[in-house]
């Protein structure tokens, strides 16, 4: 299938990227080629095959519903952010 400029801009939005003109250009080319490659799967007949989403052989690993001791404290986690005020993370205005 053909990937248009609008498709790249749309995928950029879905991915939360502010893409430059130059990037849109190079991504158009690269992503078209990658999609062309993965589209060869079309020729494989998968009728009646169940999908596999994980290859872990176990199901329903339960644990008791107790709050476990955490490896990191609130202070340690807040120390990782750029701006913090009154134990909250500060970001630019939302609206």
């Amino acid at each position: 299938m053909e990937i248009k400029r609008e498709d790249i801009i749309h995928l950029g939005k879905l991915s939360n990227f502010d893409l430059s003109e130059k990037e849109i250009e190079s991504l158009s080319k690269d992503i078209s080629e990658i999609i062309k490659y993965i589209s060869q799967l079309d020729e494989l007949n998968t009728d009646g095959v169940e999908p596999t989403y994980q290859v872990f052989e176990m199901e329903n690993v339960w644990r008791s519903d107790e709050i476990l001791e955490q490896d990191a404290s609130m202070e340690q986690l807040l120390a990782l952010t750029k701006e913090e005020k009154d134990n909250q993370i500060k970001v630019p205005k939302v609206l």
Partner: protein
Amino acid sequence: MKIANKTVTATRLVKDALEKAKHFADYNIFTFIDEEGALKKAAEIDDKIARGEKVGRLAGVPYALKDNFMSTRGDTTASAHILEGCASPITATAVERLENEGAIMIGRTNLDAFAHGSSTENSYYGPTLNAYDKTRVAGGSSGGSAAAVALDIVEFATGTDTGGSIRQPASFNGVYGLKPTYGAVSRYGVVAMASSLDCIGFFTKTPEDMDLLMSVASGRDPKDLTTLPDFYNTNPQLGDSRPVASRPSLRGSAAQSAPVVAEGLESPKLRIGIIKDFDNDVVDAEIRETLKDKCELLKSKGYEIVELEMPSLKYALAVYYIIQPAEVASNLSRYDGVRYGFRSEKSGDLDSLYGNTRSEGFMPENKRRIMIGNFVLSSGFFDAYFLKAAKARTMIADEYKKAFEKCDFILTPVSPSPAFKLGEKVNDPVAMYLEDLMSVSLNLAGVPGLAIPAGRNKAGLPIGLQLVAPRRQDKALIEFAKELQDE
């Protein structure tokens, strides 16, 4: 590997490793070196030894940590700009287990940012050079770890393998590289790439070292509910001197499907599978020749060579480059500059903070994968790509199951060619993806694979081969690798 004792001190081992790391600085292997911390740990172990106290099985062994493992020593950057300055308050379970046995991390190694790549050229910190030829790539994504072991800087290094990121750099640098059974080693505290494919493994110089590391690091972890119950150490094969085929096994697969061998018979006829679908011009002639030589060696040792047809493997790479980016898009949506790591300076509101941080913080290959992932998951394309790939994944896993009814292990190339030149494939994503042609199907099926060194080509570059075993047969796989060691 050398373990510290009364005569060879941990301090000596660590100092040697640090000196070698400095000596090979131009290979760009490390993103961080912790001289002070490593020497302090070494001194503690030496004190214990001097006092006659018990020390761990890896006492004083210097190792290198791929920079996508969290540890409180040094920032965990995954060689990505967006994680710059990210000092983890937690430590990965695998790291904890190695260090509880006395292993000493001397530094963190370079990788393709977020482990996206097959050459370490996608690192924010520049490429790592091949241990055998500085004009060539170290492979990837765990290029730094592979080169650190190949240049004998450290005794072992950690890696992550989502589609070949341990096995391909191991083969490019002539060392052993194990991608264990999915769920064998805890992923807790390791930067997630594609959660249904990600495996934690190691680079070593010998199969014996690999066995030791697996016995230390593998097993159930309450912090990662996708870890399997401890099969590696409780496997009845442990300490069993009988040939692999005649040993009892916890689960079906290799041992049970092997031909019945009379007790006491010295060499049972173990069957080694060769995948016919990989024997074509796509694979370098010298690699195919090496594979044939190893088959002859095995035949002379009494093994039977079985030809396998696995037609679905042809689609494994396409399947992988649908499922993996889909999981990448999901896992990497958390990096937005808010809670940790890099935050763009030029943001007026929250939306532009996300957009600018992600645009400036990700490498081009990260962006390609996230966008492809969002493409295959988007409505209108989900059935044709993601669902179709998930179905094809079933076919691939089934083909491995069937193959292991006919043989005990499979021997294949690791990658289509030996280490390629720096810059050769960096602007051609599909050419780079083709590097993973013969390694990705193992991750899709969850089976273990071990890259083993198998000599060098005429140009002097290492050639590696890949051994594959049924799930949970990791120990038998490592054991069998000894049979293929160069004389």
